């Protein structure tokens, strides 16, 4: 080897590993129109499925007439619940311990519910056939308001649960009651409140919204009757879970079921659940022996797939007169729609809502969440929420502001006063979470300095003093901690499968590598970031590390990507698998260099003999040796697999500050400035992190400022197209300023916490905080979202502030 030896720094740069803002490996296909999304997939003999949906929210089905549809040329089948009954597939289990109708079984429970499917030669004929299916409905009174749903005489939504006083999560005390779930210590919390000098309470509604990824849901199901094998390409954020469930439902052994999540055009939690459309396409394929494609359109997506939020929350804080919080109490009515199809870990029907003590050292706390059925789309957990952390963070951040306003305290000061201090980590909250690490004060100071907070407050005071000011200025500050990385298998499972994750890595003889994980990217850049982790661990350039996910026939079992779990769980599995390889490589290198393992140092990409720089073996050289002549006692090859069961969740945090100006004449809001500081621990690719932050903040902006899913009294979902559902364009979207601190997770192999949901979780209460802050001088303590111009104007008018 006579080639000049590059410096360690140069070699590290060449790896483009951890910490590098390296460009993405997956971009090439996307920028040339060669992505492979579900609707791009064509198979020989493929048929198309369309779904007949109920136009009403609550009704009995009197009659379904398939004749006209079946008579159309090119139509192969029209199936209803009756046809699925013999297969026992007309109902299916949900991820939340409930059951859901696959096709409406004599009764419609929500508008746009699936009633029948048609299979035809192409999607045009399928659409015609779907329009030709005649269904006769007898409308029933719909229940839309969850409080009304719990009244004694409320209409019965779930006749299939008649007489069942126990649900998957305990007692049901009303026919529309799903569960009541508690966390914390009620007695301690009540005692804190009983003795508190100051208490505040606030009711707030976190409206129902929808993740609305640009690619809708769909699949291509292909049952091969000769091999008895089922292959399904599907928009799924959790392909292995789908495989296990499909196997259970169909009776086909998992070994003969292959689920493939190809390229996915955005997930955001919309693509976690198993939808009736998928089950129907699979059944149709099995029955017809041909591939069947189903891709929903946008209205179907918004109207029938996993929505998010719909939490009616009552929060209370007990405090000292100088703002030290003594206790927290929260009661929630959770509107789950007609079926509890929430994608939560089994033991947590309200997800991680009990992170609602936030970044604060609150000694006594209790929360109770009551799930309720209504005649609306099923779901509840979705949209970058980290399993209800959106709701929890919203609750506590709003309550802290309410308390600040009551005590006439500055909203930054009250937060700093109540922060869990750096020295207190690892910190066990009143709800039992063990927060891994955090340094909130440093981050807060950084943000307040960056925006010149005192100057902003001074400006606001001056504007408030001017009755003719054309705008109201609001400053919103949120200091959030989230909990992600589900999770330790002893508490986190999906349908019984522990929420570990996995990685297998194989290094090839000539030094490049392939790695597969149990997660699945939907834009998060795993093909790049995962390669970067391996590059740093193993000294192989990320450029030659091929990352694959999503094919259950090749990828090790994993629970998928949602809840920001990829980096905390799969990222850890990657590091651990890499370290197994590293350990074997060290043995091989020692053998090659004829020294003891203890005499070797690892430097960037090579094992060096201590004290002799000229004697080294690179990982590439070791790889060749592993296939050429491994040392005695070692198997040939250089690979490892690791299944990582995390010991704990991770707790990324952030400090967000928003300055906005409300036009008093129209109610329109201009976001003047949004400063987002995130701490996700170790940062794998700053460029990718920043992109995720921009995206999450933009989603948060949309949620806070305009998204809603309004239902009328009959259960009709109004505004279920992109005309009304607010997806901001580049014109509406503010400019984002990002910043960071780094507080690694002590229990994570690379100290990384996950980040992609933080901007969504944290920004939404920030916008609300700013809007309310604009009105605070009039004693307004809370305004519900969305803060559309119309709704804000009504508040302006109500408080005599409109021009």
């Amino acid at each position, binding site marked *: 080897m006579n080639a000049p030896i590059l410096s360690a720094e140069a070699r590290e740069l060449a790896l483009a590993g951890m910490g590098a803002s390296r460009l993405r490996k997956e971009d090439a296909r996307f920028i040339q129109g060669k992505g492979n999304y579900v609707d791009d997939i064509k198979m020989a003999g493929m048929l198309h499925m369309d779904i007949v949906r109920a136009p009403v929210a609550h009704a009995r089905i009197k009659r379904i007439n398939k004749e006209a549809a079946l008579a159309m040329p090119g139509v192969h089948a029209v199936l209803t619940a009756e046809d699925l009954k013999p297969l026992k597939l007309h109902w299916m289990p949900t991820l939340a311990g409930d059951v859901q109708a696959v096709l409406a079984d004599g009764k419609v429970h929500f508008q746009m519910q699936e009633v029948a499917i048609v299979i035809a030669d192409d*999607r*045009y004929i399928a659409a015609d056939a779907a329009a030709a299916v005649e269904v006769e409905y007898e409308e029933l009174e719909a229940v839309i308001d969850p409080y009304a749903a719990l009244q004694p005489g409320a209409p019965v939504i779930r006749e299939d649960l008649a007489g069942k006083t126990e649900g998957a999560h305990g007692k049901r005390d009303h026919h529309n009651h799903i569960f009541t779930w508690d966390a914390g210590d009620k007695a301690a919390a009540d005692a804190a409140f009983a003795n508190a000098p100051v208490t505040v309470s606030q009711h707030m509604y976190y409206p129902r919204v929808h993740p609305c990824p640009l690619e809708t849901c769909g699949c291509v199901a292909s049952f091969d009757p000769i091999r008895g094998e089922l292959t399904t390409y599907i928009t799924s954020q959790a392909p292995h879970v789908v495989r296990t469930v499909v196997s259970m439902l169909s009776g086909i052994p998992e070994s003969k079921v292959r689920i493939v999540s190809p390229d996915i055009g955005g997930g955001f939690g919309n693509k976690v659940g198993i939808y009736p459309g998928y089950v129907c396409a699979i059944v149709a394929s099995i029955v017809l022996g041909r591939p069947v494609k189903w891709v929903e359109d946008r*209205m179907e997506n918004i109207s029938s797939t996993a929505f998010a939020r719909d939490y009616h929350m009552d929060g209370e804080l007990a405090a000292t007169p100088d703002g030290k919080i003594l206790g927290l109490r929260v009661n929630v009515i959770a509107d789950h729609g007609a079926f509890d199809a929430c994608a939560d870990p089994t033991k947590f029907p309200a997800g991680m809502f009990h992170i609602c003590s936030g970044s604060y050292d609150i000694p006594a706390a209790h929360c109770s969440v009551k799930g309720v059925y209504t005649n609306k789309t099923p779901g509840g957990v979705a949209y970058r929420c980290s399993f209800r952390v959106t709701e929890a963070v919203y609750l506590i951040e709003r309550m802290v502001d309410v308390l600040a306003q009551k005590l006439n305290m500055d909203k930054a000061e009250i937060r700093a006063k109540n922060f869990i201090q750096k020295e207190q980590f690892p910190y066990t909250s009143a709800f039992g979470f063990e927060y891994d690490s955090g340094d909130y004060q440093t981050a807060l100071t950084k943000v307040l300095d960056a925006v010149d907070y005192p100057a902003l407050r001074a400006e606001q005071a001056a504007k408030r003093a001017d009755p003719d000011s054309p705008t109201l200025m609001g400053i919103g500050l949120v200091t959030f901690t989230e909990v992600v990385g589900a999770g330790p298998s002893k508490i986190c499972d999906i349908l019984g499968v522990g929420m570990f994750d996995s990685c297998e890595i194989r290094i090839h003889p000539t030094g490049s590598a392939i790695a597969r994980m149990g997660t699945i990217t939907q834009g998060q850049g795993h093909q790049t970031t995962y390669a970067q982790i391996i590059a740093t661990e193993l000294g192989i350039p990320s450029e030659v590390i091929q990352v694959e996910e999503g094919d259950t026939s090749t990828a090790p079992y994993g629970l998928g990507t949602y809840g920001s779990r990829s980096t905390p769980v799969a990222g850890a599995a990657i590091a651990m698998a890499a370290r197994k390889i590293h350990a074997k490589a060290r043995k091989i290198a020692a053998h090659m260099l004829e020294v003891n393992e203890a005499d070797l140092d690892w430097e960037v990409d090579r094992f060096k003999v201590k004290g002799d720089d000229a004697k080294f073996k690179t990982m590439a050289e070791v790889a060749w040796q592993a296939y050429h002549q491994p040392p005695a006692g070692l198997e040939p090859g250089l690979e490892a697999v690791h299944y990582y069961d995390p010991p704990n969740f991770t707790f990324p945090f952030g400090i967000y500050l928003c300055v906005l100006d409300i036009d008093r*004449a129209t109610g329109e809001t201009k976001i003047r400035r949004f400063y987002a500081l995130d701490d996700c621990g170790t940062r794998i690719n700053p460029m990718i992190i920043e992109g995720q932050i921009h995206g999450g903040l933009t989603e948060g902006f949309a949620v806070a400022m*305009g998204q809603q899913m*309004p239902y009328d009294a009959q259960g009709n979902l109004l505004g279920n197209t992109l005309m*009304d559902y607010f997806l*901001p*364009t580049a014109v509406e979207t503010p400019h984002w300023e990002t910043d960071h601190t780094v507080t690694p997770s002590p229990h994570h192999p690379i100290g990384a916490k996950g980040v992609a949901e933080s901007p969504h979780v944290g920004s939404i209460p920030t916008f609300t905080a700013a809007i309310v802050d604009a009105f605070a001088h009039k004693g307004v303590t809370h305004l519900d979202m969305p803060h559309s111009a119309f709704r804000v104007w009504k508040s302006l*008018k109500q408080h005599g502030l409109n021009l």
Partner: protein
Amino acid sequence: MIPPRFEYHAPRSVGEAIALLGQLGSEAKLLAGGHSLLPMMKLRFAEPAHLIDINRIPELRGIRLEGQTLVIGAMTTENELINSALLQAHVPLLPEAAQMIADPQVRNRGTIGGDIAHGDPGNDHPALSIALNASFVLEGPKGRRTVAADDFFLGTYMTLLEENEVLCEIHVPAFAAGTGSAYEKLKRKTGDWATAGCAVVMRRQGGVVSEVRIALTNVAPTALRAEAAEQAILGKELSVANLQAAADAATAICDPAEDLRGDIEYKTAMAGQMVKRALVKAFGRCA
């Protein structure tokens, strides 16, 4: 997502189009920009058995100046309005307002004629046409007739255009020197219809308004000419009180539909705000 079946016709002249309309009657719809009609057909809210595509009729395109009148072909797209040097020079209100309609791609197909003929109260060109004192040339089997914009709009999806007629040209008086104009459109986001919109064309003499036309978008079943508002500001200066009087006169005739953009109170109030803003802006542009 999938439109129902239809027969497709692509006439090459207005005469051919009219003949087809005569033949096919109410079973046929004209396809202009298609960005109102095709989405409705994809959702199966409209199921015409025949589409008559008028995109290949050269006579319906082009913008020219005839004396003091801008003659705009009905199939002129929004982007053509924006880029027209003639309009920028003689009727700047149109290029400016067209930028507030839809988005860049839609503006490459959406036409001024389609926007007018559809009779949708949410469309912008009706109020703009009224403010501009425009007139429309309609052609049918009996020949051509000209109708003032003031008289054309009858109700939601109802205009003076007969089923067997084609809107061919929009005639707009070129602005006299010193004319100021503005279109204030409040909307929830880019591409949305107006929550409330107001078009103003005016002239001033010294410090007072000497001529004015005010028209409102999407606050009634059709675009409205706010004549009482015009009277309230005519001959007056733009004081706070006078502006308010004009706004009040305008809001008095509003009859908006409640929807997700706002309730009646909000939309009406916003109509008033847009009137004030448009008056101020137009006045500021008067010479």
